[in-house]
């Protein structure tokens, strides 16, 4: 387990300087940390696709954005991924929580929890799964993929790893 502060420092160390999204319980502590962080302030959006639009504007302005969302929001992010950020090659990190992991969660999370990685594969978004022992390595690899392809890359966060 790493602390939310350590995790936020990893994001900043890797160049992220703009953050928006929609909360998830799994992302709660990270968002609390960033809410008072002047280097990487968190800007709340109403929906995940709106957050991706805001992050796109930030990227066009020269920022390196991270978008946080629950995997339920990945559904509404498919169109902006396909017809905006992959199409125009707008790099950003999607920090996506993994609700419904291994089928153990509330019923509304189970289908997307099972489909999430297949959705990312289907649309061509590279991803890293963050585990207890590799948070920094997972972010480094995501940033490398994002820069090499010039497109969004995802880092997937399960419960209990960042607190």
């Amino acid at each position: 387990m790493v602390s939310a502060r350590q995790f936020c420092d990893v994001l900043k160390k890797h160049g992220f300087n703009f953050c928006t999204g929609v909360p998830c319980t799994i992302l709660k502590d990270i968002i609390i940390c960033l809410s008072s962080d002047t280097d990487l302030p968190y800007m709340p959006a109403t929906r995940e696709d709106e957050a991706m639009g805001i992050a796109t504007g930030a990227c066009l302005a020269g920022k390196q954005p991270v978008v946080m969302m629950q995997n339920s929001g990945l559904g509404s992010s498919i169109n902006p991924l396909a017809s905006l950020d992959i199409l125009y090659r707008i790099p950003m990190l999607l920090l996506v929580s993994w609700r419904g992991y291994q089928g153990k969660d509330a019923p509304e999370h189970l289908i997307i929890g099972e489909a999430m990685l297949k959705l990312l594969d289907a649309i061509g978004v590279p991803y890293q799964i963050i585990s207890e022992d590799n948070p920094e390595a997972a972010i480094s690899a995501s940033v490398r993929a994002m820069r090499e392809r010039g497109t969004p890359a995802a880092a997937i966060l399960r419960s209990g790893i960042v607190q």
Partner: protein
Amino acid sequence: MKRYDAIRAVVRALDGNELLISSNGMISRELFTARDAPQNFYMIGSMGLASSIGLGLAISLPKAQIIVIEGDGNVLMNMGSIATIGHFAPGNLVQVVLDNECHDSTGGQPTVSSTMRLEEVARASGYRLAARVTTEAEVENVVRQSLREGPAFILVKVEKGSVKGIARVSHSPEQIKSRFQQAARTLPV
């Protein structure tokens, strides 16, 4: 007023250093035809997100002036964006909404904008200026007045239908992005 004439009136109010985001469909094609420039980001997909892209730019480049040009269908698809823009209230963002009460680019299917006052939603959400205009002179004047005085929401009532001879955007999405980023980097401070 025709939509193309409204777009030309917006362009007349600008000095050429502003960054423009235009929504998908005919609006981007008409802006491209009226005045193609590296400062134009033609958003050819992701319907609804033009104002969100504008917000991200406005917050990140406080010295730049950002102009969003979109239709009523786009606004209705992402109404939450009005709330977020009203909250963060960037002074350098102007949102021009060309309202023809329909999805013109897909055959004129009606939207619900005819029975509501979208500009009042913007006003109630915290925009500094919210206006409804019906003539080209008003478009030009209100856009000019809104520069640096935003966020502004300018609803322009336009006719359905397109004028003839509107070209397709000839740049690839990657070209649109690259030249836009270059233009944003070299803006006069």
